[in-house]
């Protein structure tokens, strides 16, 4: 059962500012997702290897070759703030 404190914890980890109403709605939704997992758990998976991927493919690799980059201006175009050739972000440490 997901409690309110769990939702607050996850919200903090993911930097989401949720209102009281949203916290409650998330709590309900997360609980119904977990309930759905209980349904899945009913499937007999005896002898089936756990997997993290839906496709049965391994070893997809590329050769170590340089390809063209994107232009600097294009990569900086969406920056909320920039200083010359650099992205500018708010201070990092807390007061």
């Amino acid at each position, binding site marked *: 059962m997901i409690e309110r404190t769990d939702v607050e914890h996850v919200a*903090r*980890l993911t*930097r989401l500012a949720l209102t009281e109403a949203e916290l409650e709605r998330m709590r309900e939704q997360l609980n119904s997702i977990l309930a759905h997992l209980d349904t899945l758990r009913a499937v007999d998976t005896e002898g089936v290897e756990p997997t*993290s*991927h839906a*496709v049965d*493919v*391994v*070893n*997809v*690799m*590329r*050769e*170590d*070759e*340089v*390809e*063209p*980059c*994107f232009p*600097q201006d294009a*990569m*900086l175009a969406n920056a909320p*703030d920039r*200083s*010359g*050739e*650099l*992205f*500018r*972000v*708010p*201070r*990092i*440490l*807390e007061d």
Partner: protein
Amino acid sequence: MAVTPPGADVNPDRYEVVIGLEVHAQLRTRSKMFCGCPTRFGAPPNSQTCPVCQGMPGVLPVVNRRAVEFGIRTALAFHCRVNAACRFARKHYYYPDMPKNYQISQYEEPLAEDGFLEVDVDGSSRAIGIQRLHLEEDVGKLLHEGTIETAKASLVDFNRSGVPLMETVSRPELRSPEEAAAYLRAFRAIVVYLDVCDGNMEEGSLRCDANVSLRPRGAAELGTKVEIKNLNSFRNVERALKFEVARQTAALAVDERIVQETRLWDADREVTRSMRSKEYAHDYRYFPEPDLVPLQIDRRWVEEIRAELPELPRARRQRFVSRYGLSLSTSDILTHHGPLADYFEAAVTEFPDAKAVSNWILSEFLRVLAGGDERVLSMKVPPRNLAGLLRLIADGTISGKIAKDVFSTMVDTGEDAPTIVRREGLTQVADEAVLDGIIDAVMAANPKAIEDFKRGKTAAKKALVGQVMKATGGKANPALVDRLLEDKLSKIQT
């Protein structure tokens, strides 16, 4: 807590120091870990990026095969077990150097585990356990406007973002700051030999974090550990750890609790400081990276890589001692950098007096090199030319003193020794008749030295030899001058 200066008045023997190192090495691939952007250092900021390495939504990373190969190569050199299967995982955290808010790393299934690295401290050797070695991507580089504490804003360059990183975690088996520095030195020598990392700490190719704790001697349980970040030179590793050991020792002496935290080494003020980061606890919510399928490492591939492993620094050092009869310390210096050892061996092939070659390399070669790149100097003076110079000394054509000047000219012009000696007329004067005349003239001009010699001052002879050498521009054969002068002086005395 107020900063405690190192060397606080406590009994250092009460506690045992426990250190573990996490070393991040940038791999020398041409392209990044998951995209084709180049890894070249020093390009204009944000000029070597693409949507993959800037973490744009909807892009697909693809693993660089060479990075995996380099990881395996290193793992084998560290005697690790290369896992048959490994997987990448997302490590979540929020920091502006990481725009997609997770770093692609490896967690439960790393590339390799359980190895060791042999470390020499004070003449004895210890094997330090390596817990794991995994691959991940580097993050962007932050520049603070001012210091990290006072900065109003930070600036980000993502060129480094996505460069392949290999993280190697030692077991907490290092017992002193000196041993930790020695571990890092041995680590660097190996990855440079393996040609998987350039080992350049100033450019950040090799970075180190340390975990430090103290426990009462004999205790089995580990004390509360403190993580120190930002150790970017051998000197800093040792100094930061010394400071931290002293700080923790002083705290324990007054029954103060050690707080588990991350501290930053401030190299300017020589203190570690607590980092009050916005990073919320250490809850990285790892999960398998859905965008990358697992790797199943082919045994044959591993064996191919193993077969191509070069001779490593310690083995080479041992061989230099047994094969060339060099001392351990000389061998250590020669084998620390692969190119220098290669140079030595190439020169010895041409001029088999290993001691003469090593003496020359350790004195003149390293003096001229002065911390520069061996490869540049060895292009100017190839090993064959050094051998040629040593041959001229050995057969008496030039004196050792003149040879130093010839070597300088060789470095400047890239010519070989015989060419320079011939052009500048530096051939040693070994003609007795010529030297006879010069010695007579010098003796006639220095009656005082003769008198001194008669009164038993043997040092006067040395002065006369010096005068003869000076008169010949250093070209007289010193042994011959010495003998001729000895004859003449003995005749005067009787």
